[in-house]
């Protein structure tokens, strides 16, 4: 009896601790399941990137190139943060030159970016 009396408080606190810990653990587990874990690229084991036959369907030329209104003559239109990131990735011009101001600026559409990415990937893998 004495042993039980000694154990009860610790049992109670253990239960309390369990009750307190279970909801956060359940939430964490739920979030993990919902967000999913990142998967390893596995399709490349089945189809070699250099041999993949890809069809890219666009509705118009704008799927590949489009006139970017943000690139007004003399200014890039991008924020400083975006310009800095763009320069790092080599995606955007630093600033349009005076000679180019008369022409509309064409930016790369998603279709073109996809085509380039496939070309790059196919050659490197």
């Amino acid at each position, binding site marked *: 009896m004495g042993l039980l009396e000694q154990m009860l408080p610790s049992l109670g606190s253990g239960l309390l601790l369990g009750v307190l810990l279970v909801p956060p653990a359940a939430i964490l587990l739920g979030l993990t399941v919902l967000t999913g874990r990142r998967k390893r690229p596995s*399709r490349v*084991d089945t189809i070699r990137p*250099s041999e993949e036959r*890809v069809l890219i369907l*666009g*509705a118009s030329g704008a799927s590949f*190139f489009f006139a970017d209104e943000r690139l007004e003559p003399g200014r890039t239109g991008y924020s400083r943060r975006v310009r800095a990131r763009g320069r790092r990735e080599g995606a955007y011009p630093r600033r349009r030159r005076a000679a180019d101001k008369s022409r509309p600026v064409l930016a790369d559409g998603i279709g073109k970016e996809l085509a380039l*990415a*496939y070309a790059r990937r196919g*050659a490197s893998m």
Partner: protein
Amino acid sequence: MQGPKPLQPRTRPRARATVRPNPDRARLSRRPSCLVARTQSKLEAVAAECNQLAQAAALSSAGQSGKVDRSVNAALTAGPAKVLSLAVDFTDVESMLGVRQAVEDAWGGLDSVHIVAGVLSTRTFAALTGSPPTPLSTNPADAAGRLNDRARAGFAPAEKAGIESVLDLARCVEGLCYARERSLSRMLLIALPSLARPAHRRSIATNYLGPLLSYATFLPLLSAHSVQPTVILLSTVAAVLPTPTRTLYSASKGASHALLASLALESDLLGLGVEFIEILAGSVNTSLRTRAVDASTAKGVNAEPPSKYSLEPAAVAASVIEAVDCAPASAGISEEPLRLRQIWLPARPYRWAHLLYWLPGDFGRRKVEDGARDKYRAALMAQ
């Protein structure tokens, strides 16, 4: 008397989970891609850039490794990398059959089909009926003010032409929903003549009929000639979340979303082995808004503030390719079911918004709708 033969699931024998030796490897090692759109000059420019890039990458790869891999060697000796570019309308049946024939002749099959097409409509539903949209009093307690505003703005019943316009739209959506259970030809007969306005017809045709026609044209080819075929539809979060001033766009993309979900399941039951991926993207920094079918009349387009979650096209392309590459190894080559994969771009906030929107109770839905209200209020008031 015997009843109809029950459908036998997964009748198609699956291939082994190994790299299938391609009999025409030398030809295929030239990174085959086919680009389809309506403007030949732009496609040729992309094709030329792809070829240059591929050549440079192959040379760089050969230089770095110190030895020339067999596939790289084939790429180098085969001359310029071959990127097909076909200028056709992808909502036209004859044109798409031509594309299929060209692809079959060139490569004997396909592994991936990307549908990267969308046409936006930015008018409010009231504007579609021909009634002027009414900027209401922003004070929720000012009911009398709202009533006065309505009277002052002439929020009268729409004229006959306006109602017919909406009816055309309704027939279109009805026809599309009806057609999901009918054949392609029947659907084309129902949906296309019922659309009166060319601009709206283009929107629906591109957003819904284009993907539908693509599936009808290329699914058998994909299934028969690829070890792990994939169809990727670049869709939008507007297909599954409410977006004011995008009613027509949202409806057509929603129809496309429903079609893809049903088709993915049906294809799996039939054992076609094709994996479907739906990219649900938010704002992407392209000219979609300025190219809207009613851009000249939709004054509010430029009033919309840029989304803080906007993505660049290159980031979207990288995510798409990552999604394709991360297909389960078993996809198409085992008895495990193939599920439609949905990729949210960016995952935060749209994936969570979708989850919130469908939670039981009003809290989540209210939060999502408040976000949409805030985002589109300026465009709505400007129209």
